[in-house]
């Protein structure tokens, strides 16, 4: 029965997407109606796909993304570019909610306990991925990236460094989504969250340095870069300051008003997004700080997390469906083999970096036998927004090789979007940290 209803809905929406102006007053109204119906269909479709995926032991996030891919511009075409642009505010609000959750999951006590491991894994992962990227590009650069211009050794090294930084980036959004879905708690969860969030900041810093270096050596253009970062210290300090202020304001609201928390969170998200647009600061970092302040410097953390859990599911579906719809399928098919190989090299670098990091800190071997041993690296596979943003910046700044680098990054991110959540879910289940090991029963 459920299948029949879903099939009927599919036909209904498909007809609507094909004949939007039949009974509407204007093209604008047709656009609105199609957008509403498409959004509704994606939420329902994503939900059903998520349940089906959970039923076969895969993360729901992957189901949402594949729904987005299915209805995206390269297949069914319900989610077109116009609709994607109109949903930009939803995407940004989702990012804030994800970052708030990420910040709320970072507990000062856990951070102190694992500080050595976190820093060692963070540094070693980035370093080893950078080394592997540079080596691969020097040995077989032409196979991964078709350079049109003639580049010397120094220039290739710089490109490799920039590509390496982008390659090592993780995805806090996917990590948060999988952790929330699995209701995971424990050492592996803490380590993955902490390193992923810290790496987000670390990678932005390295990327800014890399870009400065590249501009010095290769020139390039900075015109047309819409979201150029302010000077690095200002970026970090400004984001921290706004995050702390907003965090305390939120604490005061939760403590003294404490009503309609969901509305307050949404309003705060909208205000924060506008503020970040004006100041060009880092949205993710700011929102993470807000969540961190609420969790660690007040007793309102559980209220925040509960409210976030209530409002975030529909927004998550739209966010990840949009991410799926953004996967450039023809491009992925065109450079598929190179992208798969690069994603493999990235996974190798992450595994090596994690293992070396744990070995240096002695964390993994402190308790024997550790249920998380050999699994933590899987949590660092997901990759999404940050890498895509940086790739776009490279393409705009360095037309030519920048476009080719972006192409490779887009394809690699597409692979990691699908593979990453699956790997992380497996790690959480295997380590016993997932409360929702079989969420078919929910």
């Amino acid at each position, binding site marked *: 029965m459920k299948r029949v209803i879903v099939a009927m*809905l599919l036909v209904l929406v498909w007809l609507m997407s094909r004949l939007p102006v039949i009974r509407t007053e204007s093209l604008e109204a047709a656009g609105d109606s199609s957008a*509403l119906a498409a959004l*509704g269909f994606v939420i*329902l479709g994503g*939900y059903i796909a998520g349940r089906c995926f959970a039923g076969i032991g895969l993360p729901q996030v992957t189901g949402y993304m594949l729904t987005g891919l299915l209805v995206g511009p390269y297949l069914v075409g319900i989610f077109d570019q116009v609709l994607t642009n109109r949903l930009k505010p939803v995407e940004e609000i989702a990012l804030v909610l994800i970052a708030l959750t990420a910040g709320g999951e970072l507990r000062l006590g856990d951070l102190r306990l694992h500080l050595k491991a976190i820093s060692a894994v963070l540094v070693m992962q980035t370093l080893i991925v950078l080394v592997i990227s540079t080596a691969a590009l020097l040995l077989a650069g032409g196979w991964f990236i078709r350079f049109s211009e003639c580049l010397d050794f120094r220039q290739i090294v710089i490109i490799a460094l920039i590509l390496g930084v982008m390659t090592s980036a993780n995805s806090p959004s996917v990590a948060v989504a999988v952790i929330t879905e699995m209701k995971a708690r424990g050492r592996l969860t803490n380590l993955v969250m902490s390193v992923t969030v810290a790496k987000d900041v670390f990678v932005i810093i390295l990327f800014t340095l890399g870009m400065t270096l590249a501009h010095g050596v290769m020139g390039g253009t900075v015109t047309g870069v819409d979201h150029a970062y302010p000077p690095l210290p200002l970026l970090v300090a400004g984001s921290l300051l706004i995050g702390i202020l907003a965090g305390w304001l939120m604490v005061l609201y939760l403590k003294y*008003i404490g009503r309609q928390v969901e509305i307050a969170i949404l309003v705060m998200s909208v205000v924060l997004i506008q503020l970040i647009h004006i100041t060009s600061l880092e949205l993710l970092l700011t929102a993470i700080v807000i969540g961190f302040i609420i969790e660690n410097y007040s007793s309102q953390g559980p209220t925040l997390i509960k409210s976030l859990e209530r409002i975030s599911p529909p927004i998550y579906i739209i966010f990840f469906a949009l991410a799926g719809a953004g996967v450039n399928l023809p491009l992925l098919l065109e450079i598929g083999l190179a992208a798969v190989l690069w994603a493999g090299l990235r996974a190798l670098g992450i595994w090596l970096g994690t293992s070396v990091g744990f070995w240096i800190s002695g964390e993994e071997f402190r308790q024997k036998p550790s249920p998380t041993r050999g699994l933590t690296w899987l949590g660092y596979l997901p990759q999404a927004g940050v890498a895509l943003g940086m790739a776009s910046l490279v393409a705009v700044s360095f037309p030519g090789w920048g476009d080719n680098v972006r192409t490779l990054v887009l394809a690699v991110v597409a692979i990691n979007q699908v593979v990453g959540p699956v790997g992380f879910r497996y790690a959480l289940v295997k380590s016993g940290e997932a409360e929702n090991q079989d969420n078919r029963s929910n």
Partner: protein
Amino acid sequence: MNPLLILALLVTCAYLGGTYLFSRRGRFGFYTGGVEFLLLGAILSSGTVLHLPKDFFQDLFPFVHIELGWIGLLFGVQFDRRILRHLPAIDWWLMWLKSLLTIAAVSLVGWLCLSVCLKDSSENLIPVVLILAAAASLSSSWTVGIIYNLLKIRTPLVRRLFFISVLDDAPGLMLFSALFFLFAGGGVSDAVLRFIGGSLTGLILGSLITSLLRGRKERGQTLVVLIGSVLLAAGVAYALGIPVIYVTLLSGIVIANSKPRLRDLYPTLAGAEHPLYLLFLILAGALWDPSNITALILALILIATRFAAKWWAFELSKPLVDIQGWGGRLALALVSPGGLTVAMVVNFALFPDRFPLAQLVLDITVWALVILNPLGVMLAKRVLAPVEQS
């Protein structure tokens, strides 16, 4: 400053102001049911305080469709036949009597007034008058709800009145849907097609929601399914030119009568409606033209007519109801219109080329709400409190 930011800040200010200055608990004797947001919308759209871009409110219209769908669903899930069949037959008769009397009286007075005001007695007035009548036949259960829940006046009379205030929306909604199908342009065959399309969509969505939510407990998952369904219904209804309230109302009725009963659905729906409802009221306020004095005069006349019709209905039913305090004065408790009334007329106002006088209907209805809503609880308390004391 970004308009979205302005709206976000204003919603916060209006919410906090409404909660802490006037308070839903009637700190100064007023119980605001959202009038503050209607006024905020009117002030914003007038451009006197802030100059917002012209298309600012138009960009937010999809939210109106979503809210209309949500209201329909919220209303529909209350029609559970397993509960309704326990109601005394006299309540059903009273519901029909009260609604039909109101519809007849408001239609007649409305037609006379509009003919004089607009110097037009053509058949263009018929849909307008009937929309007004359908809107006037609805009563706000919110007022009686406040009396019961917040003021703790829990007599059999209040309980009975609450059920009647919920039930008596049904005839008005039926008339509203019929008007939409009949007067939305095209011939009878188009109206029939619209009716079939709308009904099928409502039934399918209702079945889908029921099958997806069966056995689910988490509020987040329930919200996902509800939001997805309402968006889909709103899009389909908008595209087909049918009222979204009708589509989701049907879905709600299907859900309410499914087996096993989805018990936690109503609280989830009601709880999540708040932000949408606030936005909806702001947009309704933005559509409202408070400078239309004709609308104000007509609103006052129609309030009086509406009250008289309800008073008469209660008086007529007096010999049949064996409850102390039953009588015409109970009409005071049900005189305040609610959000559903505004939702209904906004639905027409969204299609101005099909319903040319929809703006006038909207102005009249919003005036009535602005006048009566803050007084609604006070009036109801006057009627219901002495009975409790005696």
